[in-house]
């Protein structure tokens, strides 16, 4: 009985410690303590429910504080909540786990890089890029910098580009810089649309979707005229159906929000007249 009583006291103390001692209790601080306690006790549903009612910034503070706990189950819960309630602190909690020795934690953190949308975490993203030894992770971080950053991030990205021989990482940095407005990088991406290989052309289209600049569709004529098979759109076991390069290009136009009179996503084999409509739209963009 005595030990149970002690546990109850500890819990109360953890949740309401300062208020109980006679100081003016800060309600935000109290909620943070409560959330911290629930997470560390792995009471996941209660923790998530409480987090949803709180200020995201406060949730982030808690997540960042306890992300380094050695218990994998707690770390996973931290990452789970970070995926639901993004904030600067949540992102830092995620980035802090990219080098975790536990591969399960690391794989979840790797998948949450895309949640780091706050401009304030750009320095943290660069730091994580420096610390990582995995070029796929570095590439994902570079792309995230391209989404969350601005033109001021370009020199640092260029430095990373110059320092890596890895082609995949170089490509990720190139498209990130292109998204941030670097004209030279954009030219390199656009050049892929006239590459002789199907793979390079498809990669160029996907990269332009990431860059998110609809005006770049004015360079789509060569790909809209390319009728070579490119991507399997039939599920396994079904009769083989391939989307052609032109179909993928029209899909990219849909993804870029261009006003095609039809939807080209999910990918499908378009009719000749639909391809023609896409070409006409591209030509009108060129005229602008």
């Amino acid at each position, binding site marked *: 009985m005595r030990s149970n009583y002690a546990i109850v006291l500890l819990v109360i103390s953890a949740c309401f410690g300062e208020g109980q001692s006679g100081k003016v209790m800060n309600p935000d601080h109290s909620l943070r303590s409560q959330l911290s306690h629930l997470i560390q006790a792995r009471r996941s549903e209660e923790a998530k429910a409480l987090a949803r009612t709180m200020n995201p910034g406060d949730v982030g503070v808690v997540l960042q504080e306890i992300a380094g706990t050695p218990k994998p189950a707690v770390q996973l819960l931290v990452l789970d909540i970070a995926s639901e309630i993004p904030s600067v602190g949540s992102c830092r909690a995620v980035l802090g786990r990219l080098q975790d020795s536990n*591969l399960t934690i690391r794989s*979840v953190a790797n998948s949450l890089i895309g949640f780091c949308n706050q401009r304030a975490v750009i320095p943290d993203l660069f730091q994580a890029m420096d610390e990582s030894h995995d070029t796929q992770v570095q590439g994902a971080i570079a792309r995230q910098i391209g989404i969350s950053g601005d033109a001021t991030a370009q020199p640092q990205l260029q430095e990373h580009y110059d320092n890596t021989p890895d082609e995949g990482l170089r490509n990720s940095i190139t498209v990130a810089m292109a998204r941030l407005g670097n004209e030279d990088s954009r030219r390199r991406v656009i050049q892929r649309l006239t590459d002789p290989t199907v793979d390079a052309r498809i*990669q160029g289209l*996907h990269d332009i979707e990431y860059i998110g600049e609809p005006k770049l569709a004015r360079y789509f004529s060569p790909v809209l005229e390319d009728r070579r098979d490119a*991507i399997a759109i039939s599920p396994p076991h079904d009769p083989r159906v391939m989307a052609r390069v032109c179909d993928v290009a029209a899909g990219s136009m849909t993804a870029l929000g261009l006003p095609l009179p039809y939807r080209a996503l999910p990918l499908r084999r378009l009719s000749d007249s639909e391809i023609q409509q896409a070409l006409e739209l591209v030509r009108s963009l060129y005229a602008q």
Partner: protein
Amino acid sequence: MPDFVTTIWNTERIYMVDFGRAKTGAAHRRFPDIDNVGYHDDAFAAEHGPIVSAMANQTRVNVRFHRTEISTAAKLFAVSTDPTVVNITSPAGGALSRSRSQNIEFTAGGAAGRADIEIRYGWNDGPMIGRLYVQVYARIQVLMRVHLVTYVQRDLAGNIVAQRNHPNPFFSKNCANRAQRIARIREFINQANETWVPHGVVFTVVDIVDTVWGRPEFGSGTVSPNFGEMTQAGALSPNRSAVNVNVYCIPTTTQGITGMGIPPAWARATGLVFPPAPPPPAAPPPQHLSSGLYLVSDSTATAQTVAHEMGHYMTLCALNPLTGNADQWHSTGDVLGGAHTRDDSVSRRRIMYPVVSLLNAAPSTWRNNTGYGNQLAGSFLTYRRLPAAQDITFEESQRAHTAALAPGFYVG
């Protein structure tokens, strides 16, 4: 009687000893299948021999040793090149018995690594006459949220106008209530782990949720969704998790499948992204991919379906890293559609072979059992990598393990 009596022709290869799986029947984590398909490896050019794997800290892993062309009288020893990676626990001291075949048991070290079990002649430091490579993988859990999906269609007043619950039998077993259905799913996933644990991959059910799909998810009033409706609903599903593989147990589909694993890269490449982005300047809503594992409960899906479809989720058999295209969905010789997959005894052993029950191809009935039971496909994952021009479906073990760690493996 000499230990070795074989006429050797000029270009003949001699295998005095060999290795194989240490049991028959269903996959078992302590009895992994051995890649003895080819002794060429593009990724490890200096290695020429069979290979197997285990997960870090796995104990009592068994492989079968055979004296193929050497006398049972020959003194042979099994020796690990690095006992911190592979510690041979049986036979004690490494001295092999005089049986034609016997098991060698080992414990995997605590960290990832690679070592060989060498077979030495005469003494434990005698000449080496054969070896088995062993890859030890660090453990990675693949986290899963299982959705028990029901279809409910309502009219504008909220009244139910059509409904589809899980059938009984549920995945071919009498399951009259939710607890029994959950037990059935857990049984499948546990059995799928018997295939994947030796490759360092452990499927772990984090939670099980009841999920309802209706018009908002399907985009139609169906309770028998086709492929498009099913994948759209998967993307727009309530309870979809960003930190787990979403496993949708659905009552039915018109697709005629037992299950389907959709890898995130393929979903992205083919535009399985929902809801559609509106034209600018409207801000795009949060979008979701259709990636996940879809299991159809009115079908004949088995635990092997889970193991196979999770292989697809982990980018097997050959997903183009540049474009996300599925260059091949299944095992060697496959073309999209699966009609021309090479149908030999090696292909039939592979978990990514596209046919669950083996065809009885009389008079070649010897192919009907590849060690996993009569007319049952196997759970073998390849290790060796061949030049791309030769075969792009190999090296499944390492590629799947790598995929599970890559950014974007979990997608909300």
